[in-house]
């Protein structure tokens, strides 16, 4: 990278600087101050460790996000490789259907999960007819897991496909001729080559799952993920300081995850959620 000595060009960075300060730094500082302004002062930042409910919520959110990330990576890597390697009629349609969830907000995805596994859901109807008992998991962590998986998969598939297209086929052929069986080729050659893409898309998955709210809110009966806890503290319990400190912690955890993945993969990662 080269640095040019054109100080005047900083003017070009002015709009983004203004935006960043007004909409990010100022509210963040405000939030940090509010977080420390409660009855317990600065120590309210330790609420995540001290309050069992908050700690459990944090833990549940982390576990959920990690589970979603790994499942999405496994499913999407196999599917992405298949889609890149094979040409079949209707491939374009399959691709556009797979990326369809990107078009939905979290609320709609929550709604879809209810349609599938809710009290009046399809799975419930089928299991009732077959086993005489309704299976309902839409309103639990499992429902949320499927909802998050649903919108994580397209993000990962797109990244993996982009990375898989650049895979050098001769590397695999060389491994074949050197005597490597297929599973060794996957472990020794393909996964290392896809690593930057896996890390980048995994980080997006993780960050999105950590912060997603719409789906959880739609399904919320038995769900206590961190964004929901923040919402509850803020609106129902009027514990503004607690909500603020939890927000900061949630932001930090996500940011650290992104930071680590960025330094591992050397790529710019964008998050939307």
């Amino acid at each position, binding site marked *: 990278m080269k640095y040019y000595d054109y100080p005047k060009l900083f003017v070009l960075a002015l709009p983004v600087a203004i935006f960043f300060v007004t909409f990010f730094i100022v509210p963040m500082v405000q939030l940090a101050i509010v977080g420390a302004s409660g009855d317990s002062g600065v120590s309210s930042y330790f609420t995540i460790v001290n309050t069992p409910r908050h700690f459990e919520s944090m833990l549940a959110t982390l576990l959920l996000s990690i589970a979603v990330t790994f499942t999405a990576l496994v499913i999407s890597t196999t599917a992405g490789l298949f889609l890149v390697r094979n040409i079949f009629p209707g491939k374009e349609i399959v691709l556009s259907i797979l990326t369809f969830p990107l078009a939905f907000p979290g609320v709609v995805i929550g709604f879809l999960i209810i349609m599938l596994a809710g009290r009046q859901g399809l799975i419930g109807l089928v299991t009732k007819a077959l086993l005489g008992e309704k299976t309902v998991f839409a309103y639990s962590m499992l429902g949320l897991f499927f909802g998050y998986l649903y919108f994580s998969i397209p993000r990962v598939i797109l990244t993996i496909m982009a990375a898989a297209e650049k895979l*050098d086929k001769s590397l695999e052929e060389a491994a074949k001729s*050197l005597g490597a069986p297929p599973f060794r080729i996957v472990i020794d050659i393909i996964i290392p080559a896809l690593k930057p893409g896996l890390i980048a898309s995994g980080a997006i998955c993780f960050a999105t799952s950590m912060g997603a709210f719409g789906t959880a809110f739609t399904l919320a009966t038995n769900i206590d993920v961190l964004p929901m806890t923040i919402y509850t503290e803020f609106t129902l319990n009027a514990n503004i300081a607690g909500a603020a400190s939890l927000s900061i912690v949630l932001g930090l955890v996500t940011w650290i995850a992104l930071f680590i993945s960025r330094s591992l993969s050397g790529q710019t990662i964008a998050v939307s959620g």
Partner: protein
Amino acid sequence: MAGLIIKDIQKSFGKTKVLHGINMEISDGEFIVIVGPSGCGKSTLLRMIAGLENVTSGEILIDNLNVNNKEPMDRNIAMVFQNYALYPHMSVFKNMAYGLKIAGIPKLEISERVQEAAKMLELGELLERKPRELSGGQRQRVAMGRAIVRKPAVFLFDEPLSNLDAKLRIQMRLEIKSLQQRLGTTSLFVTHDQVEAMTLADRMVVMNEGVAEQIGSPLDVFQKPETIFSAQFIGSPAMNLIKGVTDGQSIKLENGVLLKCVTNFSGEVLAGLRPEDLLPDKKGEIIIQIDMAEPIGASTILHGTLKNSDIKIVSMVQGLVDQKDMQKEMSFSISPEVIHLFNRESGKRIN
């Protein structure tokens, strides 16, 4: 080490037929070069032997064993790829050791074999480097090292020198040749470069449009090209081909010049005259109007037109011909034994 037999190998991609029945018998330790223009099917043939492409019909035998349906890993071959195909995330040592590690060979032996190959290829200092930290020639050596450590029955080289610059290519060409002679491993080498083919091969296979035009020693192919294609593909500058009619002992070229030649065929032919076989001779029958001279150091290539015609002809003379001294017209003679005669329809050699 083993021989390799190829029986009537054909290959089609969908409806397109790319190999029309190739037959070859390669004996143990032989160095075979498959040479041809791009798209002639030479790489496909190599990849079929490696097991990276299916065989449409025919048989491939390595050490008298049919390997048609065997996976690459079970064929006891090692391939060197055009782009080297080194694993970017592995060090030179790990790249070279990979095949042995897969085979479950003990660590100590792997280390010994890699060290031995590294020494042979002068890679000893570089074993801990990653491929991206190596020069083109070094990467090439690592790719060969990776093949050598496996001690395979057959080496397959897929245009391994084409990504190197001219000087390095000549150096690596010599190294491959001496390495192969030292190891004595049966080798197949694919290239589009006729110089590589001439210098490396014990025998070469000239391929064109999915057909083996000629199989023979480099000198055989050069001195007795079986077809018009191999006549024109091997030799630089390319052989001149001029229409003519023979009467059993001499040939009358299109422009009326009568040349003695060795044949017992009478009829319409194509006469092949190698540029370097045209010798400047004040009393020569072949009179050429010189249009251009290309001095290339030890010799000069003269481009011209046969007198009393518009037939283009190229000749190569020893030494430098100064532009000033260059005559507008030069006469040449050619000895009857080096006139190649080809059938106009079939393109096959007659004499």
